[in-house]
């Protein structure tokens, strides 16, 4: 009785009210999390340690220990190589995409002629590079032919980036940096098409920064350049974290490893091996993300 009274009293305080409402707000998510995520997730862990065969009544699951994991690493010829390739790609692409999308979001937030038109164009990759369209795009024959034609006529194109490389090397820039940047120029479509979501998130973030901050900095004599480093960057830094997380996951979901996992599971009907691969893949994303978020979250600025 006494305990209930105490509980009632604590719920009447502002903090208690907050906790109560927090529980209510969180309830739908928690239900879904348990039923539609935790249950299937633990089942897939169970699958990864077992051999699965279709039987007369549903499926037969027999425990086989680490056999599936060992098979993924030592027997399957593609898995190791594709995994390493995917990880390397991510390490190269993530910083490029983040810097590029922040830069573009800042530009798209400025006032200029045709701004809304430009914004609608930069949203297009979100539509074009998702789901079924991305899959179909890679099999389009007409596209392929046209690309061939463009490559024949596009000799000047390749020369351009070659020239750029030479100029930068002569100027004494480090060779690795030069190769990194020219590589980025050559993969510009890939980068643009992967940064649609990030641009939009940054754009929305920049718009929640209050204009007073910029006004004050202008009155105090700050240039636009200084305002970017001292106001825009710290204020959008929570979203840099969001975008890094999103970019890593997104590039993983495009990686060839995902196709491999799918084909092992649904074409060869080896659900056990497929689950084991999915788990290795998932643990390696975890590792990269933990490293990434740990370094970034130290610099992130929150309104507390």
């Amino acid at each position: 009785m006494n305990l209930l009274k105490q509980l009632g009293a604590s719920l009447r305080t502002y903090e208690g009210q907050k906790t109560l409402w927090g529980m209510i707000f969180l309830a739908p998510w928690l239900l879904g999390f348990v039923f539609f995520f935790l249950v299937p997730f633990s089942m897939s862990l169970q699958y990864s340690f077992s051999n699965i065969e279709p039987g007369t009544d549903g499926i037969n699951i027999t425990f086989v220990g680490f056999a599936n994991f060992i098979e993924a690493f030592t027997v399957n010829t593609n898995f190791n190589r594709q995994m390493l390739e995917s990880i390397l790609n991510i390490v190269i692409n993530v910083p490029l995409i983040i810097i590029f999308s922040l830069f573009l979001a800042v530009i798209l937030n400025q006032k200029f002629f045709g701004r809304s038109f430009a914004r609608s164009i930069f949203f297009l990759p979100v539509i074009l590079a998702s789901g079924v369209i991305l899959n179909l795009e890679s099999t389009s024959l007409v596209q392929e032919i046209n690309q061939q034609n463009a490559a024949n006529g596009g000799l000047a194109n390749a020369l351009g980036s070659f020239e750029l490389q030479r100029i930068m090397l002569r100027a004494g820039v480090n060779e690795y940096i030069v190769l990194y940047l020219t590589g980025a120029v050559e993969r510009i479509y890939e980068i643009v098409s992967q940064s649609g979501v990030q641009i939009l998130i940054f754009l929305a973030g920049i718009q929640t920064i209050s204009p007073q901050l910029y006004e004050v900095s202008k009155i105090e004599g700050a240039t636009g350049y200084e305002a970017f480093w001292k106001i825009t960057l710290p204020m959008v830094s929570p979203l840099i974290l969001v975008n890094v997380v999103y970019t890593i996951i997104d590039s993983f979901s495009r990686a060839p490893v995902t196709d491999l996992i799918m084909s092992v599971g649904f074409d060869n009907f080896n659900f056990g091996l497929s689950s084991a691969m999915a788990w290795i893949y998932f643990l390696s994303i975890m590792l990269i993300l933990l490293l990434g978020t740990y370094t970034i979250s130290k610099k992130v600025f929150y309104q507390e």
Partner: protein
Amino acid sequence: MNVIRLLTLENIKKWLWSLIRFVLIAGLSFVILYPIIQKISTAIKHPSDLYSPIVVWIPETYTLENFKNAISIMNYWETLWNTFLLASVTTVLTTASCALAGYAFARLLKSKGSKLLFAGVILTILVPPTTILIPMYMNLREFSMLGIIPLFTGDTVNLLDSYWPFILTSMTANSLKAGLYIFIFTQFFRGIPKAIEEAAYIDGAGVGKTFFRIMLPNAFPAIVTVVLFSFVWQWNDSFYTTTYLTSSNVMATQLSSLPYNLSMHLDHGDSANTDPFYLSMVQDTGILLSILPLIIIYLFVQRYFVQSVERSGIVG
């Protein structure tokens, strides 16, 4: 005299920046638009133009034949309505449930337990959908909610081949990429100054009122972002739609089976004679038809992005 005044350093800098900005945006826009322009040019071409060496962009004989074919084979109007219904229902439910969860994580719960739960949200983003697909499928085929439903009806419910899997998962903020939306909302709510919340409390608003009247309007850009993403991704999603829906027609399933249906339609199943280039051509037309509604919707929505600049004056 006027010329000299115009040539100050400030002005030159401004003009130079405008020029660079214009070149940059125009160039990148071209990179993005190139595949679409190519699709449009392919869609209005007559099949005979495909092999003509003099036709690159502008066809010699215009035709709407491709559109007609694609519309009739995809059963376009019915598919459009189905997809629109599915995408809008899931979008509304997902946005609502994710906003609530995001606010709870950002401001309401401060204990160690809530941090653990938030790690759960991150987990839902990280785990690839392929990992949980098979158990999920079984779960939905014999849906029992841990044995609660059989207590009332005596048997489990088969939820496959209906919209229920989509509605249930989006209501509980566990649909396609919902973890990301919760994450976006959390980061946005954290960015809103605490002083506003405290001011609302001092003025006598409860927690619920503070959320609905103060915090939600301030997070308007986040809402627009989430609505846009979840709509587009649901529209294009072929992963869940092909698994959960076996007979219903939505855009993604129609689009992925378009080439097969087309060759059936043309040669009555004898696909050996069908020209693969022609199939690819009609498929491009189909893609164009399916993204067209999205582009139109975006043109209406994107003005809210601009509007929210003025709205954000409330903050701070």
